[in-house]
């Protein structure tokens, strides 16, 4: 049993390494597509961590939604916006610094409090199952409103994008 624990430990740290390494690639790369690749590696690493936590379904969702849909949105965002060859200038001073530091600080603080408030149970000791039926039951009864709000949010985002595009096209003479 000891041998398998070591293997499990190695796999866990490997996944963490993939996740964090992808993150560094995402912020460090000079071309936007490379950043995006780093981001998708991070998403895949997180999907692996979900498998590690015992929910295969959530991990598949992570791959499909984040690794698939979100990355495609970002790809198209890059392809229609910047030309991908433009090197992103990382200018961290002036107003950028003023905006970036409080935002990051807030994010870190929120994460910290969330982590402190959670009662952590080691994955091996948890007996609850995280099968797809269980997820469905939870979504249907406990977090139903949240998910309807997410779909509303996505709808609003979509409508907003359409409005922005249409007003741009009217300005440029229907081209």
């Amino acid at each position, binding site marked *: 049993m000891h041998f398998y624990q070591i293997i499990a430990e190695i796999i866990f740290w490997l996944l963490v390494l993939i996740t964090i390494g992808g993150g560094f690639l995402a912020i460090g790369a000079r071309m936007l597509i490379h950043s995006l690749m780093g981001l998708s590696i991070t998403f895949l690493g997180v999907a692996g961590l979900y498998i590690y936590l015992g929910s295969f379904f959530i991990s598949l969702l992570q791959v499909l*939604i984040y690794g698939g849909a979100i990355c495609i949105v970002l790809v198209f965002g890059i392809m*229609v916006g910047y030309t991908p060859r433009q090197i992103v200038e990382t200018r961290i001073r002036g107003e950028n610094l003023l905006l970036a530091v409080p935002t990051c600080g807030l994010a870190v603080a929120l994460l910290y409090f969330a982590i402190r408030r959670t009662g952590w149970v080691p994955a091996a000791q948890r007996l609850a199952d995280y099968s797809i039926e269980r997820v469905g039951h939870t979504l249907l009864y406990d977090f139903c409103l949240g998910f309807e709000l*997410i779909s509303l949010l996505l709808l609003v985002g979509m409508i907003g994008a359409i409005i922005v595009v249409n007003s741009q096209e009217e300005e440029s003479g229907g081209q």
Partner: protein
Amino acid sequence: MNDKILIDYMYIGLFFLCGIAAAGAPILISLLVRPRTKISQRTLQTYECGNIPFGQSWDFRHGIGFYLYALMFLAFEVDVLYLYPVATVFHKVPAFRAVGLFVVFLGILALGLIYAWRKGVFLWTSEKKIY
């Protein structure tokens, strides 16, 4: 996590690793047996049907329509994948609640689709001139 699930993951891991090996092996073999003749500089040009390539393809921007399609895809995929786990407990849920949920979710999706349709997202450039 019980043993059966662990063994399932081992299968998945092994299949993935062997898939990478199966993809890499032909390339390796090819690198070993390929002919090593001198290639002229023209061979390494970007292929544009014999013309001298014009610019880099990375420097072109693409139509904004693609982005809208991607956003709509995101909305659809998130909502539909939410309904997947619901489908597995569909037979245990009271009829009114289950059908109501489907109506609300699919209704929101349909609203987005109808809005995009009305606003001409599905029109392509040639049609827009008439419009």
